[in-house]
């Protein structure tokens, strides 16, 4: 019993010091975002400045078109999440439940695409976008992200666990395979869809390379790209930049805290691939 307590205390000590390391940079971001510029350059660093400057948050939009970036990111992310949920659940259903020739081959091939590094397709995709005049449009970010091998795989794994009896019942009622998909599988797979949804949201919201390659003008920029480009300006207003950073991660932290269990399930499921 005593040994148990000692063990737990040690575990707490390790976990707590780790957790502080994880959280401290965020706290510092928030504290810097509430300082005056001159207070940023003080040694030793202080947690708070003389007064809390909330107006740094109001000044964000003076410095750069923050709302535009935010709305662009939101629009792209929402479209991609919805599209991937639709396409991945359809394909996942097909690979889990429909019988047709070459199914295994096709699935294997599709899985294999997960291994292709994005950098291999990046250059030809860029040329495709250029040829179709889609450079510097949001389509260049949305189109390649409409389907996902990972999402298909994730939902297929989930669909495999749905008992066959439910499907049989629907078929007796005269449902087409689509009916089975739409009436039985989709309603039953809400947790799995939510898991995929939060994952796609995170990936799309935070994506940096694709916007960096495809987006040129300020009006089309996403939040990460906009934030990054703000740093290159003549003189960086650190408190304001930090305020922008804080706002940019709030949606994700909110979603994460609300849907923590889905996130964790997603990580666990993706981990199952190895077993």
């Amino acid at each position: 019993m005593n040994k148990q307590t000692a063990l737990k205390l040690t575990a707490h000590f390790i976990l707590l010091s780790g957790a502080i390391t994880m959280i401290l940079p965020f706290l510092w971001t928030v504290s810097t975002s509430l300082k005056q510029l001159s207070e940023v350059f003080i040694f030793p660093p202080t947690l708070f400045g003389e007064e809390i400057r909330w107006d740094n948050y109001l000044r964000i939009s003076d410095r750069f078109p923050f709302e535009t970036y935010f709305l662009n990111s939101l629009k792209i992310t929402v479209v991609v999440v919805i599209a991937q949920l639709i396409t991945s659940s359809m394909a996942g259903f097909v690979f889990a439940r429909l019988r047709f020739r070459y199914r295994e081959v096709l699935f294997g091939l599709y899985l294999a695409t997960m291994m292709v590094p994005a950098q291999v397709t990046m250059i030809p995709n860029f040329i495709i976008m250029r040829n179709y005049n889609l450079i510097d449009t949001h389509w260049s970010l949305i189109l390649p992200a409409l389907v996902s091998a990972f999402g298909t795989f994730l939902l297929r794994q989930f669909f495999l666990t749905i008992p066959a009896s439910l499907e049989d019942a629907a078929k007796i009622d005269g449902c087409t395979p689509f009916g089975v998909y739409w009436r039985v599988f989709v309603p039953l797979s809400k947790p799995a869809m939510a898991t995929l949804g939060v994952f796609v949201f995170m990936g799309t919201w935070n994506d940096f390379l694709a916007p960096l390659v495809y987006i040129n003008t300020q009006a089309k920029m996403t939040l990460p790209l906009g934030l990054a480009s703000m740093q290159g300006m003549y003189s960086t207003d650190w408190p304001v930049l930090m305020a922008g950073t804080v706002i940019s991660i709030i949606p994700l932290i909110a979603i994460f805290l609300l849907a923590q269990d889905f996130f964790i399930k997603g990580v666990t499921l993706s981990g199952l691939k190895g077993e």
Partner: protein
Amino acid sequence: MKVEKRLSGSGAKMRGPAPAPGRTSAIKNMFHKDGTWAFLLLLPNIIGFLAFTLIPVIASFFLSFTSWDMLSPMKWVGLSNYVELLNDETFIKVFWNTIYFAGISVPAGIVVSLFLAVALDQNIRFKKFYRAAYFLPVVSSMVAVAVVWQFIYNPEYGLLNYFLSFIGITGPNWLTSTVWAMPAVILTTIWKNLGFNMLIFLAGLQGISDSYYEAADIDGARWHHKFLLITVPLLSPTTFFVTVMSFIGSFQVFDTVFLMTQGGPARSTSVIVHYLYENAFKYFNMGYASAMAYILFFMVFVITLIQFWRQKKWGVN
């Protein structure tokens, strides 16, 4: 798999009510066939897959044998891009930088996250809080992380050197030192990915039956014995999976480097994808960059093959 087979068998039997003769029923019939629906439902994925993966993969292979700047006409140059790469001092440097980055960040990240996962698996209080704390960096964008860490690494006003000064160490100029910039980038990467790996380990740990530990308790095993003789071996499929995925991810590292150091100073943090990006979108050497992409592809392919091979082995056991 078992479920499926039985199911499709029964599906064949229950094709609904007897089909009525005539054209409409033929169409109706068609819409009760799996094949038709498989095609329809897969269509978006097939189109997306062809347009943005398969065709580009082939095109990129073709491009790697050309010299092209997107403006002048394309020139076929055979293998010379690959030959040039092998003689390109900068490429060799970024290749080894990539190996350095992966070689340190992957093992270190795994050891630390495994350690934390084991600590978190002790039926401990505040589990949810810890989990959330460690996952915070995972959900944050690399841009945000880079902004903050650049500041943390600042030699004069940064937190890191401030803390180091408590234990009497004068910290280096992290991001402007050819020696310390890469360790700094690695440290940030480990910090950011820790929570993700930890959760996968946690899932793996929860899959280990308590009976092993109970048996060990009866034998009077010490904590570290249990860890080394039960946890580590039984967790090895998970560990292996995490290792492979981390290697693949770290071969493709870009954001961290681009945002924190732009590959500098003196290319000491430049990695393959960073050099690839520069060649493709700064110098417009599309062919040369494609050849680099294929070398990267090959590296990832080899790692994936190892994963498949081990997976099979475990499957047999």
